[in-house]
């Protein structure tokens, strides 16, 4: 059960970050769930872009600082150009 719970938590975080990246960093909607498979995938690239823009340590991973920032209230205008 603990392992399942952890996995579910990770998936929820992934969905959240995916949505965040789509909304604010122009992540194409078809770029799904590459984060754990490939370090150079579009999601990882966008996570890096987000971390750089928001002044976080650029890891390309969903570390606690990155997740904390994603939960913070913010302006709805995307952070990168259309």
């Amino acid at each position, binding site marked *: 059960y603990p392992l399942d719970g952890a996995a579910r938590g990770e998936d929820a975080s992934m969905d959240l970050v995916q949505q965040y990246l789509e909304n604010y960093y122009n992540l194409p909607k078809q770029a799904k769930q590459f984060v754990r498979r490939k370090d150079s995938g579009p999601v990882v690239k966008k996570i890096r872009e987000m971390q750089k823009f*928001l002044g976080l340590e650029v890891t390309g991973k969903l570390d606690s600082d990155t997740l904390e920032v994603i939960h913070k*209230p*913010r302006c709805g205008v995307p952070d990168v150009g259309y």
Partner: protein
Amino acid sequence: FSTFPGTPKWRKTQLTYRIVNYTLDLPRDAVDSAIEKALKVWEEVTPLTFSRMYEGEADIMVSFAVGEHGDFSPFDGPGKVLAHAYPPGRGIYGDAHFDDDEQWTKETAGTNLFLVAAHELGHSLGLFHSANTEAVMYPLYKTFTDLAQFRLSQDDVAGIQSLYGPPSASLDDTLVPTESVPPAHETPAMCDPALSFDAVSTLRGEVLFFKDRHFWRKSFRTHELEFHLISSFWPSLPSDLDAAYEVTSKDTVFIFKGNQFWGVRGGEVQAGYPRGIHTLGFPPTVKKIDAAISDKDKKKTYFFVEDKYWRFDEKRQSMEPGFPRQIAEDFPGVDTKIDAVFEAFGFFYFFNGSSQLEFDPNAKKVTHILKSNIWFNC
């Protein structure tokens, strides 16, 4: 900072705004005041002015809404997205929408409407998000423990002035032609051997070196050197100053440009300014001051204009008789036009272009000739 793709901006400086509806979280006058104050933040550092409309289509339409509200960018309930706004243009462009599922406040608890409005109205004027965490245009909401401490960051000021330029100086156009938007200056390099200063003054034990739109702030205590936009400290002051001096007994720095001067205390421009320089007792032939310094022991202020100087009695608050006098007669060795002057360690430092004369007022002689930027340890 960054601007929207294509750099949309308003092609006029007199803009209109309308508060279309209100949140129930705050009294109406608190909403009015927050929006007005947020516009003022940008008004103070640009030539833009804002006037309120009560009906019809304004350039900037401010509204509160929940969920889907007609622009295909629905709000998302409490938290997360607080508001959004559109870049300058017609119709929906320029408008600012606030999510009424937030708890809007005028305090630091909840979501402060003024802080969010200052950010969104930055979008309405053409600023995109900034990656500078100190900037109002940084996309994440940041609370201030003391709202009175709120000020635009240098990044915000540089961003908005890249679109609209600095505020137009309110000069008396009978004497000095009013400038529209002055051309942008390059950022001065502190170790440029040709560096000169517009004005230099002490301020509470530090020294401020003014150049174009910027100033360096040198602390003798910490030896730190900071570089700032003048407008980030004193939004209503002009750039390209002529002279500045501190009267320590009044804790005030007087700043001169053209035929006007301002009194500033710390970060505040004092009420009642700008005033005309002729109120100090200068004849009408004096159009501007080159440099000034106040001797705190003798309670006298020296104003340098071309090759002459005037002396002002700080106790009597009047210009002394017998002036102007030739600078070179009373300050032997100082025989060039003076850009700036300040006092440190008992010496007067006179600046002319990239050179600086160290003058001993007791011995009445020049003791050293130095580079102007020697204070920056170049």
